[in-house]
């Protein structure tokens, strides 16, 4: 399989089959919290794609060239969370300085991303051995981070679109808000289960 073929397989798997939110249960807090309005969901999604791609790159480099040579793999959790926190802070400062317009649309979501478990999750998954014992190299780690972020944004936007309409529906008071959002997520997860049968 050529590069493009592998890329296609990875895209389908990260966005549909092994979706971060609906089948891996990662990043649920922003998924349920920021999905009430379509434009804020869009801002959050873009910020997550951005940070997940960068975090994949930096965490991979730190693991490969700092932790492995010194035999410090057991410090990965600590090293990764610090990298991500520093990265988010740094990205926030750079964007604020260079692109005030972008900062205005992404700014509020950036600090929230430090505690988004999808970001730490993808960093750890990138360095976890695959089924055949090998690990992703640098390029694939970055691509995996990017595509998983796209998958997250995809379901976040779908959820926000449905919830905007759901606001107008007449339903029992105790079902409003979080309960209906969770049941909706369950139905979406059920729909995504249809992709599980795909053999690629």
């Amino acid at each position, binding site marked *: 399989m050529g590069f493009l073929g592998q890329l296609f397989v990875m895209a389908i798997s990260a966005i549909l089959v092994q979706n971060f939110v609906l089948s891996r249960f990662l990043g649920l807090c922003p998924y349920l919290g920021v999905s009430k309005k379509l434009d804020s969901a869009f801002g959050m999604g873009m910020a997550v794609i951005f940070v997940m791609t960068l975090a994949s790159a930096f965490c991979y480099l730190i693991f490969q060239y700092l932790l492995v040579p010194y035999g410090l793999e057991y410090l990965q*959790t*600590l090293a990764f969370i610090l990298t991500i926190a520093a990265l988010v802070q740094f990205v926030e400062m750079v964007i604020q300085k260079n692109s005030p317009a972008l900062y205005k649309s992404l700014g509020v979501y950036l600090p929230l991303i430090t505690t988004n478990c999808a970001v730490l999750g993808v960093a750890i998954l990138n360095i976890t051995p695959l089924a055949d014992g090998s690990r992703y190299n640098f390029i694939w780690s970055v691509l995996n981070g990017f595509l998983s972020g796209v998958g997250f944004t995809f379901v976040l936007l779908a959820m926000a679109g449905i919830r905007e309409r759901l606001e107008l529906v007449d339903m029992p008071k105790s079902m409003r808000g979080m309960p209906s959002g*969770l049941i909706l997520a369950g139905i979406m997860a059920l729909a995504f289960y249809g992709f599980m049968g795909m053999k690629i």
Partner: protein
Amino acid sequence: MSFISELTKGIIKENPIFVIVLGMCPTLATSTSVSNALGMGMAATFVLVCSNIFISLIKNVTPDKIRIPVYVVVIAAFVSIVDMSMAAYLPALHKSLGLFIPLIVVNCIILGRAEAFANKNNVINSIADGIGMGLGFTLALTVVATIREVLGNGTWLNIKVMPSTYDPMLITLLAPGAFITLGFLMALMNMIKEKK
């Protein structure tokens, strides 16, 4: 507030999952069986109590501006301890919880209690708060896991509870079942609150 009331508030009145709605990812992902739920709950409780004690001890020397990074480092250190000791002594549980052990670091409950409680209270009350919140988290996880395991597998803590004619509803063990179970449980909690 006294020790006892700090201890009990986390269990029902301020339950981290059903009432404050924090820490959803581990709740949904590790509630496939009661034993997983108990393992996750205990691990999170240990980290919560230890980080509460530590953060409460250093609250006077922590500069306000960098307090969040300090909390994250403290929490990550305790999570690494749990991760390594679980891999050594309970390898089967460690394997089934997998990724969600290191992810305790970003569990909003722990950082949330550090910021909202341990940062402002003394060590004794912080211990009580940590135990109470940890037990509340474990209780909520166990309730969700009980429903999912009994309906989806016909067992509770690997003991058969349903008659042999019962056909297990596999869907409750899969991802969609997790969302739907928790959704209905929260609706039930809202309904009870409204009646009061």
